[in-house]
């Protein structure tokens, strides 16, 4: 980057993707990633350094607000590309600061030691998200077999709206109970990890939604364990594995 370029760039608004070590290098693909799929995050990503940390920034689009699907995907892609080669703390999507000085003053300098600590915590680790859902038909049959009162409600439920509602509520209640019994065992079957963050289920048949911090050296073993779990529960529980991704769930937000 020539002196002239950096002078111009330093006065432009900065979209901040994340924080890396000051001596980290931007992989070539991360430089391109900000411009993929029409996300047009302005110019290519660059580093703003201060002390032992650096911010990965790019110019945000000047003529429209952020928030399109392509913007979300680009945010994730830049961070994922970085995470494959270096420790990176994701910023929340949509973080824009007025210029490079503000990036240094409000973020890198103001929170220098905290950022270093947080980087150390996730260094050489990757996040995987494991989502488990009950197969609907299988689990409903199971619930009817074990809950005679639901079978009775079901026989009455053609009678009207109120009975339908009662039936649905009872089924959802039974699913919740089942989830609370089974989820801890499944988490422990996922094996050792360096951190776990469980998310509230987004629907009643969702059994588990947990983000795990896995040491990079343990990734293959971890994936094999998840595979085994999927095989064990095939037909009754469906398992979805998302990752490796940046450690989104393991940065402290406040």
């Amino acid at each position, binding site marked *: 980057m020539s002196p002239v370029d950096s002078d111009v760039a330093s006065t432009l608004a900065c979209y901040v993707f994340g924080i890396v070590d000051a001596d980290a290098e931007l992989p070539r693909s991360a430089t391109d990633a900000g411009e993929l799929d029409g996300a047009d995050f302005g110019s290519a990503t660059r580093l703003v350094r201060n002390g032992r940390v650096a911010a990965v920034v790019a110019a945000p689009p000047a003529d429209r607000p952020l928030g399109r699907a392509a913007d979300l995907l680009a945010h994730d892609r830049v961070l994922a590309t970085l995470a494959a080669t270096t420790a990176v703390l994701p910023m929340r999507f949509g973080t824009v600061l007025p210029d490079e000085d503000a990036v240094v003053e409000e973020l890198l300098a103001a929170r220098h030691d905290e950022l270093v600590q947080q980087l150390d915590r996730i260094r050489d680790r990757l996040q995987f998200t494991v989502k488990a859902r009950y197969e609907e038909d299988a689990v409903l049959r199971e619930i009817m077999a074990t809950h005679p009162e639901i079978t009775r409600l079901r026989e009455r439920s053609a009678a009207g709206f109120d009975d339908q509602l009662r039936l649905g509520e009872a089924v*959802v209640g039974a699913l919740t109970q089942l989830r609370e019994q089974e989820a801890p065992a499944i988490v422990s079957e996922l094996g050792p990890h360096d951190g776990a963050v469980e998310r509230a289920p987004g629907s009643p048949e969702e059994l588990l939604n947990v983000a795990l911090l896995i040491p990079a050296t343990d990734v293959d073993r971890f994936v094999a364990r998840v595979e085994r779990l999927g095989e064990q529960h095939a037909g009754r529980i469906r398992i979805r594995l998302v990752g490796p991704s940046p450690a989104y769930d393991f940065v402290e937000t406040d």
Partner: protein
Amino acid sequence: MTQAVAQRRGSYIDRPSPSSLADVVELILDKGLVIDAYVRVSLVGIELLTIDARIVIASVDTYLRFAEATNRLDLYEHGGKDLGELTQSLTEGGSRGKTKGALDGAKDKVGELLHGSDDDSDDSDDDGEGGGSSSSSSSRRSRARQSSSRRRSRTEDDDG
């Protein structure tokens, strides 16, 4: 390293590669380092969205969906009822809890749906001879209004 664990075919788990938009949205919204109040303000709408997704579990719609799924399973197992049995049980349902006959009960139900709880909605707009169809569309409109205002009050609650 990413390459080393790339997707394997024929496995027992779903391993999206690349991540779907839904996975990405769930991954990144609400997450990540925040610069004080600045970002919180600019992302208020997005935060509400994710909260909404979690409320949905304990809702009437969810209960009805699972009631329907349970009933469908029942029909599948027992070969299904024929149409006559179904309509019979529906009309019985309409009269349940009332002293009137089955048909009157069903008529009341239909009347309530078309006119709302009472006929006062007809008095408020007497601009024409619209009859049943106009009042039914106005009650439909008021239902839509209700549900949108309910949604509004819910987001206000979340805000506070």
